[in-house]
């Protein structure tokens, strides 16, 4: 059977990689990529070659996406368009609209479509929040004590609500919801990767959070499998193991600067105002209490494990940026 796949957020690194992997699959006849901005490979060199991917520039917030889905007889939708940090254009309000309204429009279009059989949505482990009162390791069924109340993580919680609603209304459609840990790898550019390339790493005094990463190659592989096979449900995706923030700083050979949490907050806000970093209040909580998730369900479902552990993913990222520990090269 031939497939027609729609990939949203195709102008971002992981989205583009997923789209090109799907385009290379002989079982898939067409891959249509949509995003609000053209992909890198169309604008300048250095982006991933989109090959036979057809690009459509659509603002997800508008109902145009319904026409794209109807016109192309899409049967699989991979929704990757989740913006994790407010960009220069429009800030937080635009980000929220893009994330939440965009997902609503997309799911609305899928609900009407008679051809869509499979929907894969990218979410984040940030939906669990970070709290000293929650278990150390989150499984998919856990209700967090203090759910996120701000920003990106809040958007993701709302998006998941709409995805669950959609899954109830269209039980004939396979819905896979993937909660990814922070992406890490040579091509990833996120607030966290930018954080680790700073000359000095501000940390919260007296806290050493557990962090978890998923390597971009593994993320792409998980998305490919989810888009080509039926795996309904919600799955955590993360590399095995955890790294402590102090351990990350040592591996990166960067000195850390412990600050009292009010000072950390002030510095974060100041840096955001002058446009240095994207800082949001839930980052303070992540930097204090950390978060780890259980990936047993994903591994049982796919019969496959991520190739990179959290540590290996981080080391691969460090190698690509030429970062190494004090006085040596990582072994």
């Amino acid at each position, binding site marked *: 059977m031939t497939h027609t796949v729609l990939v949203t957020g195709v102008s971002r690194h992981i989205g583009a990689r997923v789209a090109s992997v799907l385009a290379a699959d002989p079982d898939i006849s067409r891959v249509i990529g949509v995003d609000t901005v053209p992909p890198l490979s169309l604008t300048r060199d250095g982006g991933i070659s989109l090959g036979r991917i057809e690009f459509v520039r659509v603002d997800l917030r508008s109902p145009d996406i319904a026409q794209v889905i109807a016109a192309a007889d899409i049967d699989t939708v991979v929704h990757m368009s989740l913006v994790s940090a407010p960009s220069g254009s429009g800030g937080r309000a635009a980000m929220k609209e893009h994330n939440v309204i965009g997902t609503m429009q997309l799911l609305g279009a899928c609900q009407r479509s008679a051809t869509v059989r499979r929907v894969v949505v990218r979410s984040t482990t940030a939906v669990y929040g970070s709290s*000293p*009162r*929650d*278990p*150390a*390791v989150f*499984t998919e069924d*856990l209700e967090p004590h203090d759910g996120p109340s701000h920003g990106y993580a809040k958007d993701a919680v709302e998006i998941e609500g709409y995805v669950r609603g959609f899954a109830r209304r269209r039980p004939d459609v396979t819905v896979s919801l993937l909660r990814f840990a922070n992406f890490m790898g040579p091509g990833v550019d996120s607030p966290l990767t930018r954080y680790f390339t700073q000359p000095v790493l501000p940390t*919260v*005094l*007296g*806290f*050493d*959070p*557990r962090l978890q990463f998923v390597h971009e190659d593994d993320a792409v592989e998980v998305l490919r499998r989810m888009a080509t096979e039926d795996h309904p449900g919600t799955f955590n995706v993360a590399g095995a*193991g*955890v*790294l*402590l923030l*102090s*351990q*990350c*700083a*040592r*591996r990166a050979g960067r*000195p*850390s600067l*412990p600050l009292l*949490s009010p000072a950390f907050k002030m510095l974060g806000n100041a840096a955001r105002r002058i446009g240095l970093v994207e800082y949001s209040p839930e980052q303070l909580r992540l930097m204090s*209490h*950390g978060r*780890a998730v*259980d990936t047993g369900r994903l591994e049982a479902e796919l019969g496959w494990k991520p190739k990179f552990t959290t*540590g290996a993913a981080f080391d691969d990222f460090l190698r690509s940026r030429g970062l190494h*520990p*004090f*006085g*040596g090269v*990582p*072994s």
Partner: protein
Amino acid sequence: MSVPSEEDDARVIPISAAPSFTEPEPDSLASFLAFLRRRVTGDYEVDEFGYDAELTDKVFLELVRPLYTRWFRVETVELKNVPEEGGALVVANHSGTLPVDALMLQVAIHDEAHRPLRLLGADLVYQLPLLSHLSRKTGHTLACREDADRLLRKGELVGVFPEGFKGVGKPFSERYKLQRFGRGGFVASAIRAGVPILPTAIVGAEEIYPKIGDLKFLARMFGLPYLPVTPFFPLLGPLGLVPLPSKWMIQFGEPIRTDEYEPTAADDPMLVFNITDHVREVIQQMLHELRLRRGHAFPPFL
């Protein structure tokens, strides 16, 4: 409490550069340098709970051990009851105003049973700076159903103090009287995992900070469960924080098996309460006997 090599950006200086340096055994030096290199470059493992086994063994326990051997002269009894492998739930009495008994229990099980002990702590611990990450690094986690189940399923030796703050913060006049054992969540966890419960009695911790009063108003102001007055604190200031050198004994009781119940029996409140009461009675009995066996708290003076 300080943790060396934690925040320091230590640089490895060639040892030959130090003029007054007398060479120790080469292999211990080499292993020390290798240890230093691993710590500085972040090349070590922590588990998903944040347990840093190397830091705990090589630094933390080294710092606490003198307290165990010299100060409290801890003696263990019936050590054979601690299983050599597989999950088990160590259930102990809690006392001493500050949870020093938790540290001593960890040293006892590490040094004499050669296993790491994973304690379940109150959520207050994980809200406080320093204490929260120190507690995770030394192997402990939040007392909640999910973490307890997860550790037991992995075959770890998990420790719990069901009395909680009621036990550790009780007045000196109530010493060696077990407080209420909560809702028996620990029994349910043991049943779900099918692991034995190891009743444990700790004698000696009651005398380290005899609590004769409680500054309730100040405690509430700081959000603490209690703020103790002892004969020396706050009278002598920081000196009052030195624990009295009482003689300690730790006894491990006969394991109470739970694998004869179905895991679903964990949802039977009657069964859970019965086992909870049984464990409590066993520990109370052990406490009485062990206290008699120990004799005076401060030999040879008292």
